[in-house]
């Protein structure tokens, strides 16, 4: 049986700038045999190590059918990610994984997909969006609703532009606060719900962002007839092991690393946004 503590050296083959403090790191596992063995599902994550510094959980945003090239979009926000931000192509990171439960993209087959994201935490769902667009004919209508606090927080501009040009696709953006060059909606992301129509019986919702957005936003969707079992959310907690052993990522009865990070709404609803959980 494999040792879940072992990390595998992976070389940064490309570092792609998304914003000033967000980069996508394209990794390739150094060891040939491990590279062949490695497979993942969209929405799963790796524990990414910078040797001698520490380890962080980062979702894999590239296509699961090309597991030789592993994209991780990382925002320089903490001790480890700030140190990673100084690395360049050719430098080496360590990875363990893949871990966790990904997005239900098989279940979404043939259905309309509504993607709701809030704030800067939309990286976990980027992989799912790209996955769907690479297989555009296998899915119904796609609606992407994205909210930010201020226009300056808007990231992945090019991606949103590209997504908007996809067939049968709507992209709606909103900012809590207005800005000079902001030509989209002003208000919280849940206000965008009123601006889209969807057939509740053939739609699946993928949501990623602050828990308060999920707690407030999902009931609005449910009141429009969407079954709670058609909503999936991606959660964030402190993770150290990635395999449900270290205890940090608990959320009520769940280990977010093992039972999530993507969870069906009806299962996690009692715990969402609860203080101290």
């Amino acid at each position, binding site marked *: 049986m494999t040792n*879940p*503590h072992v*990390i595998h*050296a992976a070389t940064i083959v490309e570092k792609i700038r998304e914003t000033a403090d967000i980069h996508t790191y394209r990794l390739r596992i150094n060891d040939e045999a491990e590279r062949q063995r490695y497979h993942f599902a969209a929405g799963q994550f790796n524990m990414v190590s910078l040797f*001698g510094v520490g380890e962080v959980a980062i979702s894999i945003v590239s296509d699961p059918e090309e597991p030789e090239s592993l994209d991780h979009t990382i925002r320089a926000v903490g001790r480890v990610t700030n140190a990673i931000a100084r690395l360049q192509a050719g430098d*080496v990171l360590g990875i363990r994984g893949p871990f966790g439960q990904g997005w239900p993209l098989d279940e979404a087959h043939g259905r309309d997909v509504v993607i709701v994201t809030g704030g800067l935490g939309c990286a976990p769902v980027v992989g799912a969006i790209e996955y769907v667009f690479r297989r555009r004919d296998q899915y119904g209508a796609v609606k992407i609703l994205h909210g930010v606090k201020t226009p300056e927080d808007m990231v992945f501009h090019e991606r949103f532009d590209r997504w908007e040009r996809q067939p049968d696709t709507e992209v709606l953006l909103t900012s809590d606060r207005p800005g000079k060059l902001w030509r989209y909606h002003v208000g919280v992301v849940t206000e965008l719900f009123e601006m889209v129509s969807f057939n509740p019986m053939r739609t699946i919702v993928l949501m990623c962002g602050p828990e308060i957005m999920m707690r407030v936003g999902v009931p609005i969707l449910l009141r429009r007839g969407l079954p709670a079992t058609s909503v999936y959310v991606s959660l964030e907690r*402190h993770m150290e092991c990635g395999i449900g052993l270290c205890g940090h990522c608990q959320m009520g*009865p769940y280990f977010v690393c093992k039972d999530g990070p993507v969870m069906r709404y009806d299962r996690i609803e009692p715990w969402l946004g609860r203080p101290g959980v």
Partner: protein
Amino acid sequence: MSVEGCRVLPSADCHLLLDALQAKGYCVIGPTLRDEAVVWDTITRVSDLPIGWRDRQEPGRYRLERTGTGEIFGVVHGPQSLKPFAFAPRESLLQIERTSNGWSIHPLFPKPEKIALLGARPCDVAGLAIQDQIFLRGPYRDPPYASRRENLFVIVVNCTRALSTCFCSSMKTGPRAQTGFDLALTELDDVLLIEAGSEAGKAILTALPMSPASEALLAKASKRIDACAESQTRLQEQEVLPQALYDAHDHQRWDEVASRCLACTNCTMVCPTCFCHTVEDRPALDGQHGERTRLWDSCFTHEHGYIHGKNIRPTIKDRYRMWLTHKFAAWHDQFGMSGCVGCGRCITWCPVGIDVREEVAALLASDGHSAARRSGSP
């Protein structure tokens, strides 16, 4: 305890048991007196054991007293459960070295010796079984734990005396061990009743010159063990606990207990089942190599619930609620069992003597609910 399987060893011949274990290559570890408590240490002769001593435990207080009798296992337990023997407080996981074309990574494994743990209590054996469930039977088998665990031979001693802090009978883990041991002893005045719980245990028993236990002795043992169970303070309403505790999320009692709780981590450290750990990467000053170590952690630490820029559980109230709710509620969902074995260590070794039984009882009382319970609407 079956009539066929149970044998009698005079307490005066206890050294024969040690001899048999040592002959099989075990390092015998048992309770020893140190720093006014008992701690696990090597036992080379019977006199290393705390013969003629008993412990008195109450919330926040532990005292030993001399009884002057020949009782070998008079002390119920000390601060340490069996946890450190399989889930080490500090375990090196990896060694990492920089090489010309990247890094080379070497997993590290403990090289444990064969240990016979003499004098474990039924609650501790149950605690070990819970840890086995977590570290060995989840989606991943933890290699360091597995390697240490495989080398343990467990000799449990059934309890005939309960401390004021004991509640194993409520948690159905004692005072008689049902499973999870290699040998089980019951000390009755000047004899030890011994039965095997595994093939390895049987192999030790065959090496000892012993007679079968009489019906009368077995009845006496049962009577004393039953009396021990009867004398315990009970933790009520096991079946309703998980949902009741989830429902008590807004109970006022959490504020009250938070005013006493120090968030010092002691309860989680002495708990036989708490498994939280943190991982530390330690680089050398030259940046050429490093080591990854895991250390016991606690849900009471500042960083336990920390995620970039915010703390999920910033207050002592959040942390105490997390701990207690995990033990008695979430554990059932996660592992299909309670996370508490009723050993009472969290009560004794809490520096301010918080009694988890009292807290649970208060939380089950219906009058503390806040009117502002979540209504389901945003």
